[in-house]
Every structure is written in structure tokens, then in C-alpha cells.
């Protein structure tokens, strides 16, 4: 499979169904930027800024959070139990149908 579908709910509640390639090592943060959704990705994907903070809405099992991601989420705001950093989620075939919501900034 080359492309999966990922749904992103933006901060106005609008749903965007995105075609996401799984063969480029792309992250959710990069995918959002590629589709010009309002995700800054200030730090470039090093789990250092939380500008790609998202909530997991579907019941996919995501890769476990690294210490870096947990530490960053500790100093971010609007954090919920389903909070993740988009830059730490790489697009993979098993994430087909993934649904995420952009956290407030």
C-alpha cells in the first residue's frame, strides 16, 4: 500500500481527509504542513515545541511515547490523556483510517 487515509479535525472542527504516503518516512506533523493545515512544526520534528500537539480520536495503537515526547507534553498546555505530538507519529500502513484532532495553541 502506498497511501493511507488520515483524517485531521482542525481547530474549527472541520474534518480533512488526507491521502498520506507511507513510503517516505513522513510524520503527521509533516503531513499536516504538506496540506497547509495550521501546524507550525517550529522545531522541525524533534519533540521540542509541541506546536504539532494532537489528540488521538480513533482507536489505533500508536507507537509508544518516547521520553522526549512525554517531557515535552509535560510542559505543553491543553494536554489530555489522548495527547500526542504529531512529529513523533510516522505514517505507516497500519495507521490507515487514523483520526486526529489539532489541539488548541
Amino acid at each position, binding site marked *: 500500500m502506498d497511501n493511507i487515509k488520515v483524517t485531521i479535525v482542525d481547530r474549527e472542527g472541520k474534518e480533512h481527509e488526507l491521502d498520506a504516503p507511507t513510503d517516505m518516512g513522513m510524520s503527521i506533523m509533516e503531513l499536516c504542513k504538506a496540506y497547509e493545515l495550521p501546524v507550525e512544526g517550529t522545531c*522541525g520534528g*524533534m519533540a*521540542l515545541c509541541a506546536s504539532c500537539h494532537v489528540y488521538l480520536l480513533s482507536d489505533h495503537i500508536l507507537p509508544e511515547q518516547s521520553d522526549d515526547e512525554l517531557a515535552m507534553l509535560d*510542559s505543553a*498546555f491543553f494536554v489530555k490523556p489522548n495527547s500526542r505530538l504529531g512529529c513523533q507519529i510516522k505514517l505507516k500502513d497500519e495507521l490507515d483510517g487514523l483520526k486526529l484532532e489539532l489541539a488548541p495553541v
Partner: protein
Amino acid sequence: MGQNKTIETDIIIIGAGPVGLFAVFEAGLLKLKCHIVDVLPQAGGQLSEIYPKKPIYDIPGYPSVLAGDLIANLLEQIAPFEPGFTLGERAESLEKQSDGRWIVTTGRGSKLIAPVIFIAGGLGSFEPRKPPIPNIAEFEEHGVEYFVRNPELFRDKRLVIAGGGDSALDWSIYLSDIAKELTLIHRRTEFRGALDSVEKVQHLADSNKIKVMTNSQVTGLLGNGKLEAVEVQHDTEGAQNLEVDYFIPLFGLTPKLGPIGDWGLGVSNNAVEVNTFDYSTNTPGIYAIGDINTYPGKLKLILCGFHEATLACQSAFKIVHPDKKLSFKYTTVTGIEGIQAT
């Protein structure tokens, strides 16, 4: 750096990250002098501040180089050109003098004067991450402090510190002896700081020297011109008000474009627009290089910033020396004075 110092040079470089540093080298080849200003206390920008131990793989000629080593190498590479440094001071304002040169003033009052400015500010300047409490700005400097600059300010005061990282833990430990009352508030159950600090805080809490409230957040600030109380919301047990003199939120630093955004330069998406001919901004004499600029096809890569710095120097030469002819020379032909070939 001393206060109210005035420095004159050819190029003022705002930002001591890799691109700002390399600009000194390329300027030096053209015999242009540089002075670098950076808000951080050391050179290297985010490479030194955030990820000195991370390897970088896309510097040409280096299969892998640690960010901190790249900065050390750049400092060695530019040393022969004797750049000046004003560190720990943020470039706040930019004005044009009557002689056509620019004057950059820092937050501590240092004045830097040059005909050319290179903005190499990367992500911007690092500022404290502010909690999303609607009226927090109202109480800044009236009870809300984002840094502990002078611990004596808090002597015999009632403090609330918020945060779960090392700085929240370390300052809670330090200020526990100084404050009259200290409450540490953390959103989660666990603290992620150094184990030793976590244990010390636990010990202070057990001996009633400080109070620790976990699974809680500060959600409101109360007072009339001066902070009088904070509202603390517990995940399950509801809200309560704590009377305080100071609220110290310690949630780390986040980069902001800062004052550069107010200098009348073209800005889009937190980046300075430039012409890719020479990386000049909309204002003659002012260039933007590295992660802080934007143009069609921009990639935020160190190696792209090196290229941008090189072309900007060629253009800057014509502003510094309008009457001189610039001839391009390879370092393989001329060498660098002060650098021994190995």
C-alpha cells in the same frame, strides 16, 4: 558584556547559530568585520541550547557530526577573523542613523552600529512558555514571574510554582528556604525531573516545608492590579483559591520571532521574506539568512543557510564598500591567515 557599550563594525549579525557564525567566515574572506549578538548566553543557537548531543547527518563532508561539535568547529573556523560577541542580550530595536548606518539596541542598552545587518535569528528568540490563563498578561510584573532572576524578590513571600520539569523542581527546592510559603502545582501525578530533585521535593513535602499539589492546574488569577490569589483546579476534586504574592509558571522556553517582527520587514508565517538573489529583505542593508527567512522553495537546513550567508556577504560588500570592486577568490588559492593547513 558591559552596559551601554557602543560597537561599530561592518556587519551586525543577529543570532549566533551555525548560519550566523559561518557568515563571519564568508565576510572575513572579503575583509568585512562582524559583530554577533544573541539572547542566549553562549554561541550556537538551538544546536548548543537544545540538542548539542544530537548527530547531524546532512552537513556536506561530515557523515555525522554532533551539533555541539559543529558549533565548536565553526568557532574555530571563524576565530582568525576575530568577530565580536554580545551574548545574553536580545536585539530589541533597529533605527537608521543620519549617516545611513543602522543602529541595533539590545535589551541591556548595548548599541551596535553598522551599514549592514544580517538577521540570522533561526526560530527567533527563546521566551518562556506562558500558560493559557486569560488575564495572565495583566499580572506580569505584578505577581507573575516567568524566571527567577533574583531569588531575594521572593523572601518571606507566598509563592505558587507551576510545572513538572527540572526547573520547577530545582527552584522549589531552592526557594523553599527563602519563601514564607511555597506550593508546587503539577498537572500530572509523576514528576519527570532528575530523580535526586524529585526525592528532595518529596522530602520537603513530607516535612511540610512546601506543599505539593499534583493532578492540578492553575486556571485563574485574581487580584486588583496586583496578584492576590490563584485558582487551582484539581482533576477530580474541583477548584480552590490559594492566596499568594507570586505565581511562577515554569514550563520551559519556546521560540518566538520577537521584536524582529516589528521592524517593518516583510514577514509571513513568522519568517522574514527575502529576495533569493542576495537574501536581502525589503529594506536595503538588511539581510535575513537561515531558518528565519522565507522564500519560494525554502528549506530550513543548515547547509542552505550557509549558502544564503555566502551570497548575502557578496551583496553586503557593495554596501560597505560602494567604490571597491569585489574579486572572488578560492580559499584553496589564497589560504586563510591564521589557519594552518593540516
